[in-house]
């Protein structure tokens, strides 16, 4: 690289510079001199992307810009806390980065679990504080929603700084992330090496080619729970997609997740927010410790990984019952969760609230889609899957697609490629990575077009692509040569999947939401499905639906398919009954999650099923189960190893099976996509509504209603203004009470010496004449009547024209009304436009004569006593007897006061301001000593002034009084009504969600 990116400002610098030419930040850490290796091992972090050593304090690899340390969304404290010496693996003796829990070389655990627990919770920092905590207020409440939204919107490693900036620390990388990493991300896909990500990691250039995304991923192990879908993808990808050459990143990621399951006690301490009452519950069932960290998300993905409780359930029947209450209690502990949960889950109850209903089962179904296959022992290799999903036009097409990709890949990768081509632009991102997915395993070449085709998506997309492109490739590699991965490798990636997959639904953005969990679980499921079949738990799942069947109308068809697949597992059956009762009371996405697991009451499944098409259960079950269930098993290697090993063995079979099943239910596919779209929007809406304060609940719904509503409101307003003004003149009597400031202005004008001219500043646009003219006219007319000579200026280009108009108008009116002739140049003049706003004002204030030679028309020499005698005494602002500021914005007033105050000490200031500016100008009036001696505010002030000055026949303001009155009243009524209704609507919605 001839260019070094400044880690502080992200700008590129020639590599011979030691200091950033833009921000003077050091570019090359001193340690990393010519011979980096020389640096003491203690201070060195080895970049997982390029393998080069970096000084321990650097957050970013100075060679490849990839993060070296986990960024907890910028929670530098925790981050910096982790920056320590490297850890030497006891088993293989090699050095590992300080944050790694498992040896990157031999997978051996590096630290006792407690430590990890600590990090675990730390890892959850990005999650918002539980609503219970005081002072968090709306802002903090707003977090979770925004976080996952944010994930969607920014490339994963840019994330830390998108996150609220809480201490990303000075670690420059995240700070400059967007500027910095985007290019990096792009580079691989920008076309320089499009095919690269898809290349099997084993291949020579594959390893080196990937540094960017690999490293970036490698950097974030601690982020697992809170990480964005994009985040996780890489992690788990790495975890199982790890090319033997570089297993490093994989280790930390998974191991980070597991510990806490292993060690309930820590987790309970860790969770500051969750009611202590629950903790026992958590502990009781191995699955639940996931929920321990206070972080919302953890809760979320725990919930989403609802399958989890299931496994323990089968594994240890006694455990699950407590599991139930634990979850039941959850809502109370996390205030916002229940709402959207109920929204999701409650939906099935009320069909018209269908969206939620559909989505919950949907994403499950989708996510479950792949694993379902094994259950349905369908003829492997049936081609439909590929094309069917490829043709999928809807925006939510990803789900089926990835499936097709997944399925298609092993059998006929050709299928997968077309699928993305067929993809509509909205979903453009997905197809691409899909292509990666599908293409990679079969022939890496496939993926290349996908990237090439990818125009210039969000910075994030590329890494998705790469990640996914890489992933399947790895998978392939993995499957082809199992020996590549150590025996306990499997648990790792299984685990990582177990977590990452569930996380998506909560953490994922509308579109991405489906995609992430789906393919995640999909990928995950395959691996398990085959082995799972034989094992008892799996049987249990397939079994339960059988019981649910009677309740669920559509169930039968798939049930039939299921029954054969399920041998024993009657023991699993009793479970549901007790558990279900608990879960019934519980947020139903949870319940929904459960559905695949035996825990779900038949009723619940039925409800869900009703919202959906029959096959959803089967498809969903394995997926959801797999990821979540895996972890617990994984946790304790001893017991479960048997199963895992079994699973691993069956891996190859799965993908082949996966495809056919999909192909058989094209209908389902359709609904899936549609439903997923629904889910995406709704989940987004609901989460936002819960989490964010200032975000429309869901714009989509408003869309329909608003135009009509808008028209009604507009019509009402128009009528309210026109009617009284037209038909009921005098309905609103002119004001009798004169405001203090208005009176002050009047008195000031009244007592003004007539020997000096008055400066009138017309700082408003012709557009504002409607409001300000009446006020200005009232004051100016009063001045004219007192025979004061006037000079007009304006800091607003169009204002001078306005001044000209008003002057001429009033001069004419004066002539007509009083026969007093007011002549231009003698009694009044319009100096014109003061350019440069305040800057010009300053110049004008310091020396008016330097600014103006001629008047506004450019024809009259202003300072020449013949042409403009009135101006001859004027040398500075103090030579005016009064300064009248007519302005629509407080800025203009402020500018005048700021710039001219020191020069116009002698001349008092009267402000004629728009009602909108009043509160901000008032401080100058209220100030002590007042910077403004009198104010006339808007149309009301004008009317008052007219009354006070007793203008003949009332002024323009008085004439509009009725229209104003009608309009204001209508506005008040509408605003009150609208907000009452709105508030009520919100409440009902909230209550509905709660229920």
């Amino acid at each position, binding site marked *: 690289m001839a260019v070094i990116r400044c880690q502080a400002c992200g700008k590129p610098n020639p590599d011979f510079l030691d200091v950033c030419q833009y921000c003077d930040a050091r570019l090359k850490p001193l340690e990393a001199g010519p011979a980096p290796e020389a640096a003491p091992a203690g201070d060195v972090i080895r970049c997982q992307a390029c393998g080069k050593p970096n000084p321990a304090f650097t957050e970013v690899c100075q060679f490849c810009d990839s993060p070296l340390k986990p960024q907890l969304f910028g*929670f530098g*404290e*925790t981050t910096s806390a982790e920056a320590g010496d490297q850890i030497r693996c006891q088993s293989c003796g090699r050095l590992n980065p300080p944050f790694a829990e498992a040896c990157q070389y031999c997978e051996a655990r590096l630290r006792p679990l407690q430590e990890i627990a600590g990090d675990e*919770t730390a890892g*959850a*920092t990005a999650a918002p*504080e539980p609503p219970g*905590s005081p*002072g968090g*207020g709306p802002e*903090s409440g707003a977090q979770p929603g925004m976080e996952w939204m944010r994930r969607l919107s920014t490339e994963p490693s840019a994330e830390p700084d998108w996150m*609220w900036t*809480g*201490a990303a620390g000075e670690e420059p990388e995240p700070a400059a992330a967007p500027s910095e990493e985007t290019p990096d991300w792009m580079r691989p896909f920008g076309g320089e090496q499009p095919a690269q990500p898809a290349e099997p990691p084993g291949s020579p250039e594959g390893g080196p080619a990937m540094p960017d995304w690999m490293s970036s991923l490698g950097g974030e192990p601690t982020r697992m729970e809170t990480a964005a879908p994009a985040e996780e993808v890489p992690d788990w990808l790495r975890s199982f997609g790890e090319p033997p050459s570089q297993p490093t990143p994989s280790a930390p990621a998974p191991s980070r997740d597991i510990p806490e399951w292993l060690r309930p006690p820590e987790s309970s301490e860790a969770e500051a927010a969750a009611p202590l009452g629950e903790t026992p519950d958590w502990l009781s069932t191995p699955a639940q410790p996931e929920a321990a960290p206070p972080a919302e998300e953890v809760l979320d993905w725990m919930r989403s990984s609802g399958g989890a409780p299931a496994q323990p359930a089968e594994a240890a029947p006694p455990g699950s019952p407590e599991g139930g209450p634990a979850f039941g209690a959850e809502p109370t502990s996390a205030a916002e969760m229940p709402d959207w949960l109920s929204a999701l889950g409650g939906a099935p109850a009320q069909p018209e609230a269908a969206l939620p209903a559909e989505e919950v089962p949907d994403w499950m179904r989708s996510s479950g889609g792949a694993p379902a296959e094994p259950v349905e022992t369908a003829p492997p290799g049936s081609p439909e899957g590929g094309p069917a999903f490829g043709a999928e036009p809807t925006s939510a097409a990803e789900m089926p697609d990835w499936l097709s990709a997944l399925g298609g890949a092993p059998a006929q990768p050709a299928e997968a490629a077309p699928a993305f081509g067929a993809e509509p632009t909205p979903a453009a991102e997905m197809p691409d990575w899909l292509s990666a997915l599908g293409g990679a395993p079969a022939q890496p070449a496939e993926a290349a077009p996908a990237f090439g085709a990818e125009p210039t998506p969000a910075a994030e997309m590329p890494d998705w692509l790469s990640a996914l492109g890489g992933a399947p490739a790895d998978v392939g590699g993995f499957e082809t040569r199992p020996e590549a991965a150590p025996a306990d490798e499997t648990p790792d990636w299984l685990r990582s999947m177990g977590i990452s997959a569930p996380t998506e639904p909560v953490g994922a953005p509308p579109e991405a939401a489906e995609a992430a969990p789906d393919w995640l679980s999909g990928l995950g499921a395959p691996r398990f499905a085959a082995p799972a079949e034989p094992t008892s738990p799996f049987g249990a799942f397939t079994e339960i639906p059988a019981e649910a069947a009677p309740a669920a109308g559509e169930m039968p068809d798939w049930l039939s398919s299921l029954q054969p697949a399920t041998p024993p597992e009657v023991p699993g059956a009793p479970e549901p009954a007790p558990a279900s009762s608990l879960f019934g009371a519980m947020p139903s996405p949870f319940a929904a999650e459960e559905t695949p697991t035996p825990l779900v009451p038949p009723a619940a499944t039925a409800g869900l099923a009703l919202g959906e098409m029959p096959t959803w259960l089967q498809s969903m079950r394995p997926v959801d189960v797999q990821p979540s269930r895996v972890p617990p098993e994984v946790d304790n290697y001893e017991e479960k190893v048997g199963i895992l090993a079994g699973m691993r063995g069956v891996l190859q079979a799965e993908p082949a099976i996966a495809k056919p099943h999909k192909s058989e239910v094209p209908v389902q596919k359709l609904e899936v996509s549609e439903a997923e779209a629904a889910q995406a929007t709704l989940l987004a809406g609901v989460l936002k509504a819960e989490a964010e304060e200032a975000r429309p609940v869901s714009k989509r719904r408003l869309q329909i209603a608003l*135009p009509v509503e808008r*028209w009604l409101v*507009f019509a009402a307003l128009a009528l309210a*203004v*026109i009617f009284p*003004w037209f038909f009921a003149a005098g309905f609103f009597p002119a004001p009798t009470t004169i405001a203090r400031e208005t009176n002050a202005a009047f008195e000031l004008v009244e007592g003004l010496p007539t020997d000096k001219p008055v400066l009138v500043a017309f700082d408003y646009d012709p*557009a504002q004449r*409607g*409001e300000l003219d*009446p006020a200005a006219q009232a004051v100016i007319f009063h001045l004219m009547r007192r025979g004061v000579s006037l000079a007009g200026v304006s800091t607003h*280009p*169009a204002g*001078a*024209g306005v001044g000209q108009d008003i002057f001429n108008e009033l001069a004419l009116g004066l002539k007509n009304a009083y026969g007093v002739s007011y002549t231009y140049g003698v009694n009044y003049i319009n100096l*014109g436009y003061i*350019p*440069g706003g305040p800057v010009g004002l300053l110049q004008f204030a310091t020396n008016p004569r330097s*600014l*103006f030679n001629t008047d*506004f028309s*450019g024809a009259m020499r202003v300072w020449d006593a013949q042409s403009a005698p009135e101006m001859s005494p004027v040398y500075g602002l103090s030579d005016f007897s009064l300064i009248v500021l007519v302005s*629509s914005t407080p800025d203009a007033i*402020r*500018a005048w*006061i*700021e710039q001219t*105050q*020191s020069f116009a000490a002698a001349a008092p200031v009267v402000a004629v301001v728009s*009602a*909108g*500016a*009043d509160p901000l100008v008032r401080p*100058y009036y*209220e100030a*002590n000593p007042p910077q403004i001696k009198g104010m006339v*505010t*808007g*149309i*009301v002030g004008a009317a008052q002034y007219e009354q006070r000055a007793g203008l003949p026949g009332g002024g*323009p303001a008085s*004439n*509009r009084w009725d*229209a*104003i009155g009608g*309009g*204001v009243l209508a506005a008040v009524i509408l605003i009150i009504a609208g907000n009452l209704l709105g508030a009520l609507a919100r409440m009902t919605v909230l209550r509905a969600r709660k229920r």
Partner: protein
Amino acid sequence: MPAALLQSLPDIMVFALTLMVFTYLLGDNPLYRLAVHLFVGVTAGYAVLVAYYNVIHPQMLGPLVVSLSQGLAVLTALPTLLPALFALMLSLFLLLKLSPGASWTNRLGSVATAYLVGVGSAVAIGGAITGTLFPQINATFLSLLPQTELGFSPERMVDHFVIIFGTLATLGFFYYGARVRPGRPPERPPLARPVALVGQVFIGVAFGVMYAGALVASLAFFADRLVAMWSILEPFLGGG
């Protein structure tokens, strides 16, 4: 009555244009767009005229042209012309920036923009301090035991109390520093929280009042248009 029509052509135009704009209430439509583009164009043209006739010509081109017209006298007048010349140079630099590409022109233009940015920031700072910050702080130096001519006035005291602490609370609401606890998002330091809460209330009131004011103002705009349109329509209705 063609003559009358011709004479009242401007009025008719005003009327039509106003109507075109108000169609936007029903939704975006060609008429509105037409009106808007017309408006943008006319406004821009007028702004340029004003800028030229009120600034560029009198302050820069005028003097130069005049002195140039005096032939060699220019040389003698040169010192007095330097400011105008320098301004001309900066202006040309700025105009250069319009030409796309050509990095050197761009960089020359940057000289002008850098100049503007520098002066602008200075003026902004100076203005903010001398015009807003100090005066406003000064204005908040209010006695909590205010004495009026009628002696001590409790309601005044309340007012002052509210103003002082309202100002402080509002100012405090914007306090950016946050406390980070592991496992938590950054949150306002405990001390700042109540302050922020109170601040929110005052901000709400201030905004509410401003909004109300702006509402009345805009209502005045609309009423003004109504009056104008009616005054245009009236003669026709009256005149049959």
